[in-house]
């Protein structure tokens, strides 16, 4: 692992549109950027056996998740000519309709930003020790499984 500081991608609660706008606005001084790609995960009000998901409660094994995210970040920066990369994931109870994942990449030309964003989303879902507990409207729950 390099000497670069490990960033904390986790935040308590939902990721607000205002937070995302702020993050976008901060790139207007980076005038070498020509394309930004963003992925956002939003909690679905899925119906499972007649019950609706009201929220997902996210927990993580934080030390392991952050070390793994650091490794992914370095691999992606190595692979693509990116200007910027930002990843944020919610912890705690995120209500249906709220945003729980925000991945944001930027590059001079569009292709690296788009490809890096897609690869980041796949790796985050597959490799980070994060668990989502789907909480139904009647307070019962089941554990989410990524497909």
């Amino acid at each position, binding site marked *: 692992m390099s000497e670069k500081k490990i960033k904390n991608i986790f935040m308590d609660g939902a990721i607000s549109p205002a937070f995302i706008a702020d993050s976008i606005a901060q790139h207007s001084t980076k005038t070498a950027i020509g394309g930004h790609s963003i992925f956002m*995960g939003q909690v679905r009000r899925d119906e499972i056996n007649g019950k609706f998901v009201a929220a997902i409660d*996210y*927990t*993580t*094994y934080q*030390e*392991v998740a952050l*070390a*793994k995210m650091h490794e992914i970040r370095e691999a992606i920066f190595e692979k693509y000519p990116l200007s910027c990369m930002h990843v944020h*994931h919610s912890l705690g109870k995120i209500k249906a309709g709220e945003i*729980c*994942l925000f991945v944001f990449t930027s590059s001079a030309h569009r292709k690296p930003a788009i490809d890096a964003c897609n690869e980041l*989303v796949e790796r*985050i*879902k*597959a*490799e*980070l*020790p*994060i*668990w*989502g*507990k789907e909480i139904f409207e009647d307070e019962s729950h089941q*554990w*989410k*499984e*990524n497909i």
Partner: protein
Amino acid sequence: MKLEIISFGKISEFITGQEIEVSEIDNTDQLQQYLETSFPQLLGMKYKLAVNQNIIQANQQLTENDQVAIMPPFSGG
């Protein structure tokens, strides 16, 4: 040998964080057998182990005071 066990997600509902004292267990394969005997709910579940915050891919030696995490499939994002 003393081991610290921590667990996450669905598995944390039936294995809580605890210290265990085991004998005749030297590696993670043996620990896995021990856990599946003690907590039969693990049988048939997919899970991974991490030893001292390193996710392991193959059998690994254990030593005194190791921390072992039991992790069900990830579901972030």
